[in-house]
């Protein structure tokens, strides 16, 4: 078991490093530092430009790591292992972190572990809450993913449902663009939706009343039609933002509730960038009250960050897993331990809550 794990995350547009301190007999390591540098360069594009992201990671990553070590009050000699995001994500951006991490591990004779970004998100709440553990239902919602998982134990992830088209965060970004709002779209829509009338626009709730899968592209099209029909977008913008947000969050929480009822688990975990939405967390807590505890990490641990990568890496290192110098970055890296629904008999019955 590694005592001190340096985590590195470069899968998209956040350059991040974190230090976790654990040790023998420690059930859950403590977060000693977390540094996240957000790349502002993408804002004018309304989305992430992969080449610019990769360049920015190379320019920033060593300084971010230096700062994480300094804030942890530790020197290089204290670091036993390096955990790095190996995918999924932007492959050029991932490669910067993976190769740099390999060089750090090789230079210091350290253990190296490649971590799946999605598994990192599953571990994010456990960084702050050592008691948090399976079994739980997890809803991972970000700009790249929308997944509903049954987690009976760490390392075993039964897929209940995923999006058929746009990820929830991607839909927020696209609708924010339609509404003339900034990037990333989720926080912008949440901010302006506070001033919106929920009754002005009742938008469709795609697939809400069936199963565990998601679809958001039709909802996005509905917003597009409403924008085109609006005679005064400045006036209607907050109402459209409210209508869209209510529709997305209703679908997400309805399916989360359905999964909790189907599994009978006492805990529901929200993870990923969209889980930074206070409105989502509040709605989930309200709808699951008396049914399950809703665990949500603080916003800095729900965004892409290296603390969750270090925590997932710490778990994998504890199992005796190690990566070697051939570790590669993969844009489509599958979640380890992911089990697809084999047959209806093995799938929790998806009844309406």
């Amino acid at each position: 078991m590694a005592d001190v794990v340096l985590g590195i995350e470069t899968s998209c547009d956040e350059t991040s490093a974190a230090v976790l301190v654990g040790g023998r007999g420690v059930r859950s390591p403590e977060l000693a530092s977390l540094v996240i540098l957000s790349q502002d360069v993408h804002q004018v594009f309304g989305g992430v430009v992969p080449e610019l992201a990769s360049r920015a990671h190379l320019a920033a990553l060593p300084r971010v790591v230096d700062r994480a070590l300094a804030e942890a009050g530790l020197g290089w000699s204290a670091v036993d292992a390096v955990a790095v995001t190996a995918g999924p994500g932007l492959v050029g951006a991932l490669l910067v972190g993976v190769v740099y991490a390999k060089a750090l591990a090789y230079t210091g004779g350290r253990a190296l572990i490649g971590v799946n970004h999605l598994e990192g998100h599953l571990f994010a709440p456990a960084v702050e809450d050592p008691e948090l553990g399976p079994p739980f239902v997890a809803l991972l919602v970000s700009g790249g993913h929308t997944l509903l998982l049954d987690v009976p134990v760490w390392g075993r992830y039964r897929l209940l449902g995923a999006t058929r088209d746009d990820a929830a965060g991607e839909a927020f970004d696209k609708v924010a663009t339609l509404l003339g709002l900034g990037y990333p779209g989720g926080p912008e829509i949440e901010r302006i939706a506070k001033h919106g009338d929920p009754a002005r626009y009742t938008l469709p709730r795609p697939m809400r009343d069936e199963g565990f899968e998601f679809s958001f592209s039709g909802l996005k099209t509905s917003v597009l039609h409403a924008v085109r029909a609006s005679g005064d977008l400045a006036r209607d913008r907050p109402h459209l933002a409210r209508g869209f947000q209510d529709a997305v969050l209703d679908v997400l929480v309805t399916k989360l509730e359905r999964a909790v009822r189907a599994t009978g688990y006492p805990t529901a975990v929200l993870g990923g960038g969209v889980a930074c939405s206070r409105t989502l967390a509040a709605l989930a807590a309200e709808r699951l009250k008396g049914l399950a505890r809703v665990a949500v990490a603080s916003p800095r641990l729900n965004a892409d960050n290296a603390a969750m990568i270090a925590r997932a890496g710490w778990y994998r290192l504890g199992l005796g897993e190690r990566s070697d110098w051939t570790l590669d970055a993969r844009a489509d890296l599958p979640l380890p331990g992911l089990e697809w629904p084999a047959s209806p008999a093995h799938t929790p019955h998806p009844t309406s809550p």
Partner: protein
Amino acid sequence: MSAPWLAIDTATDLASVAVGAPPGAQSGAHVQGARRHEIVQLIAFALSPLGLRPADLEGVVLGDGPGSFTGLRIGWAAAKGLVQETGLALRAVPSLMAAAAGAALKLDPVPVAACFDALRGQVYGALYVFHPGHVETLVPPAVMTIPEFADRTSVRPKLVVGDGAMRYPGEVERWSGAAPVPLESLPPLAAMLLAIVTREGAARTIDDVLTAEPVYGRLAEAQVKWEARHGRPLPDSPGASR
């Protein structure tokens, strides 16, 4: 320089490393582009027969580009990871200079051009003369077509090397009067980095290892379009001057 240096070049489709006391290389290894992410394994492979660890080195010399964006970042990310903890010296030599040196060091001091394929009808090109103690840069690295390259200088190169030269053999022969020389017929670039790193005019010393970037040779396409549309530099862009 009597202590060993590690050389890394990943600007082309052949990633290479070499170890030795400049100008000589005692050990080396290379892989094709698809396996460039294994550069750390390559470094370990080159160091281990000499019984060396990174901390035993005096410094790292790195191919500075221009060339493959992803390739450059792989080499630079590895170098930063090696140097950051150990405090090794870091120097960068233009990858085009290393390619030209592969042909030029066998000759008297004559002008030798190197061209890497930059796609879109262009090459990354530069023109050098290698003197015994120093390297003279006649045309510094730039992105251009072969005719534009020829227009930049009145000097006719004795040889033109590189995959960019091989892509436009007719234009190269009209300019130089000689057939282009493929990279495959030259020594790996990392060995050439060691061969010339001590020559005056060859290397730049990297003082701020943490934030340094390679010479990409081109801005990102999205940045080019944004700046053309807005008539001003892209805000918060990394390496905007490159």
